[in-house]
């Protein structure tokens, strides 16, 4: 086992020295591919994290705005992450946040109230709620078929993006 590792460590610098003597088209292609890969992947990941993100809306909680037919056809939306970089949204915006009940699921709902607003709730444990600082109240357009603030209370900034 140790002998094999010794041979491997001696072989690799020797082989790369021999290969560097002859720059074939294959090696040039490989170098171009690797350098392109290291440019394209970080730039794409940064753009998807900071600027825009494409997502498919599933479920009936935002009918009739999204998925009006329901069932087979799902709407595809563009989420704007740049506009929420300062954590400012307005009432009436549709936002996508990570669900407070399940951190691996994202939900898309409409912002009804911002911090300091008084909300009359539909089916929440208190009938009137004051939205605390740093939180906002979201509801789906299709009341009754929606997992929103009426179930889990005011939502906070768990990685949200905005669709205007």
């Amino acid at each position: 086992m140790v002998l094999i590792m010794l041979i491997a460590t001696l072989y690799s610098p020797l082989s790369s020295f021999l290969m560097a003597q002859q720059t074939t088209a294959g090696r040039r292609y490989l170098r171009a591919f690797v350098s392109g890969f290291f440019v394209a992947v970080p730039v794409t990941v940064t753009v998807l994290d900071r600027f825009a993100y494409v997502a498919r809306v599933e479920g009936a909680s935002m009918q009739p705005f999204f998925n009006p037919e329901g069932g087979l056809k799902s709407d595809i939306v563009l989420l704007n992450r740049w506009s929420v970089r300062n954590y400012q949204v307005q009432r009436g915006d549709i936002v996508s946040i990570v669900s407070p009940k399940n951190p691996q699921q994202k939900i898309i709902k409409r912002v009804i109230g911002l911090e300091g607003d008084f909300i009359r709730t539909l089916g929440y444990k208190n009938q009137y709620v004051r939205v605390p600082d740093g939180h906002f109240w979201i509801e789906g357009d299709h009341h009754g078929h929606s997992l929103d603030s009426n179930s889990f209370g005011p939502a906070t900034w768990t990685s949200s993006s905005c669709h205007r």
Partner: protein
Amino acid sequence: MFRRVLGKTLGFVGYTIQYGCIAHCAFEYIGEFVVCSGPSMEPTIINHDVVFSERMSRHLCKIQKGDIVIAKSPYDPNMNICKRVIGLEGDKVCTSSPSDLFKTHTYVPKGHVWLEGDNLRNSTDSRSYGPIPYALIRGRVCLKLWPPHSFGTLSESPTKRIIKTQSDSD
């Protein structure tokens, strides 16, 4: 002459964008350096300590009870808080202070975690604002880097507030 300057400027801008994106990916998916302030985690982390927090555990949902995490404050998304995880979803946590006669308990709801600072007397944590959603966690602190005499991994909780259940000892 003008074309050479334009070419060099474009090349410089291209390199800046490329290295900026690589830096963003490193800070977002690998780890970041955090300067901690405040007394709420003494004696484990003192004011002005520099720690390294890694992001992979949070993306893979592998945060465990007893880890120190950096999270977004639920009241101000621009502020970060550094606390220890006392309970994950479904765990029983003690909500009464040690001086109370009757002990009250609560269960952490689904998708939330219960955070407490190590310095129980001087820490605003889940005992005041309740459990926070798991998605607010940014990363897990794994190494203390500064001051040099306390370099290394961080110690276990000194407060003994973690209630160990049957399934933990497996």
